[in-house]
């Protein structure tokens, strides 16, 4: 069982867990990425996520299929949030189930690492001082937001 989705509402981690849980799954593991309050020394107030949605959906589906085939047919569900997120909100959640812990843990790590390498999603940090910057564009001056 695999599931991959981009979502605009808060991620329901227990809902994701019930997608992969079964009586055969003796091990369920997960990863959550959470908006934190500081990045590279700057106070962060929130993060805006955007994506090339068609491609991001396709890449996420490919990654969960790869995880299932590399790690003994684990069940895996991943969702990534888009839009404006506040501190403490979950930006990405992965839940993996298998009869045993090793394939589940390995698959979970695989999915988050590949997602961060390949899935066309971008974030713009909103700083406590009111400025904003794309995380891929560190060298550009932060845009001052007026009004």
């Amino acid at each position: 069982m695999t599931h991959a989705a981009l979502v605009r509402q808060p991620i329901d981690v227990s809902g994701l867990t019930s997608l992969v849980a079964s009586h055969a799954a003796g091990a369920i593991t997960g990863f959550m990425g959470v908006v934190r309050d500081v990045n590279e020394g700057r106070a962060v107030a929130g993060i805006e996520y955007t994506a090339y949605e068609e491609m991001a959906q396709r890449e996420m589906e490919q990654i969960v299929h790869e995880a299932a085939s590399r790690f003994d047919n684990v069940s895996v569900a991943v969702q990534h949030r888009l839009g404006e997120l506040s501190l403490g909100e979950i930006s990405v959640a992965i839940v993996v189930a298998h009869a045993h812990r090793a394939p589940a843990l390995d698959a979970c790590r695989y999915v988050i690492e590949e997602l961060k390498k390949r899935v066309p999603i971008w974030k713009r940090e909103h700083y406590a001082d009111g400025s904003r910057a794309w995380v891929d564009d560190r060298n550009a001056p932060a845009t001052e937001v007026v009004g």
Partner: protein
Amino acid sequence: MQVGVLLFASYADAIGARTLRVTLPHGARVQDALEYVRGLPGAERLPPAPLIAVNAEYAPLDRALAAGDEVAFIPPVAGG
């Protein structure tokens, strides 16, 4: 022939557009779309060799384009 160009995140801000409709000669390749975009005002803020996808799949510079293709310029990804 016409192709669509998609720009995202910092690239869209640099060029000042998210989508462009571009006319390229028949037989054009990804490289030709890159050269077109590199000639636009603001393109000096793009890296010399940005990742490019055609129709939502990563594509090399020598990939041939067809009319109606969507050529997406992919900034360094930052999900998670």
